[in-house]
């Protein structure tokens, strides 16, 4: 199944892209997605998004469609779903 991942604000700058599409086997969960991203962008993801201990780093909100997923990474992915990795900002 195909999942599109969107990046916001500073994550766009760090990764150099604003979205990408990745293929996952049926039954995959959010944790699989984050691990896959770590394989694809190891330096950037470990530094800013997802730690080597498989923990979301502060300031990154994982959104499934238009819903914040919180810290539960066991939620199944759905074919055609859009995932957003939202980097919180503080500019005024």
């Amino acid at each position, binding site marked *: 199944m195909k999942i599109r991942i969107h990046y916001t604000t500073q994550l766009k700058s760090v990764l150099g892209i604003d979205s990408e599409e990745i293929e996952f086997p049926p039954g995959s969960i959010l944790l699989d997605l984050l691990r896959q991203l770590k394989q694809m962008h190891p330096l950037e993801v470990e*530094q800013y998004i997802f730690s080597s201990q498989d923990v979301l780093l*502060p300031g990154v909100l994982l959104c499934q469609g*238009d819903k914040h997923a919180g810290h539960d990474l066991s939620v199944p992915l759905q074919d055609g779903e859009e995932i957003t990795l939202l980097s919180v900002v*503080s500019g005024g």
Partner: protein
Amino acid sequence: MTIKQTDFSDPELTEEERATYEWQIWVPDFGEAGQRRLKNASVLVTRCGGLGSVVAYELAAAGIGKLILAHGGNVKHSDLNRQLLMTHAGLGKSRVESARRRLLELNPRLQIETLAENVTQQNAQSLVSQADVVVDCAPLFEERLLLNQEVVAQRKPMVDCAMYDMEAHITTIIPGKSPCLNCLYPAPPRMWRREFPVFGAVSGMVGCLGALEVIKIIACFGETLAGKLVTCNLRDMTFRTIAIQRDPNCSHCANLHS
């Protein structure tokens, strides 16, 4: 979620105030009752930068009774592309005094308390205690998290608005009902830098949204952004509303109930 608050008394409007606010009193569900609530309310705006300047200006224009402004330092050239309460003539002078002067030109009835400091551990409790509603416009996450801690402790609503580049975020925190900032991010993100790309039109846009959230909270009408995070990408004009959730283990607000 509509916020119902009953702790604002409703002072009468003068004839001048009725004339000044006539067109917004026509807004359905707001009316003269809403205007009287605004007149009796106090709002803390932390930092009057690109965002806070516009929040304060819109609230002054709308007839808020009292503003408490906290912002350290003097006006610099690099403030003037977005900090609309600062002027060229004010370069090198206190930012909050520049803000006070501009706001009183617009609304001489406005009460203004200023503190020429940014939010710190030492002043956060006192600043929040003076306000009915807080608007968080600080460029540092440390200040935002300090304010969050105080609004949760004092159970006061806070509108949190922020921007970066061509994107902006806004949510409203109602302690005990909606997620607090600590639910969303308990520590500052690693990648944030103190200086950031900004057009005044981007910070001003989210400042207007923030002012409107305050007006709705105080006047008890419409739907606020409690439990929702609006993200705006002004590069391609994409607006999204994301449902956000409380962290049941939040060290700040998990024990609060609505």
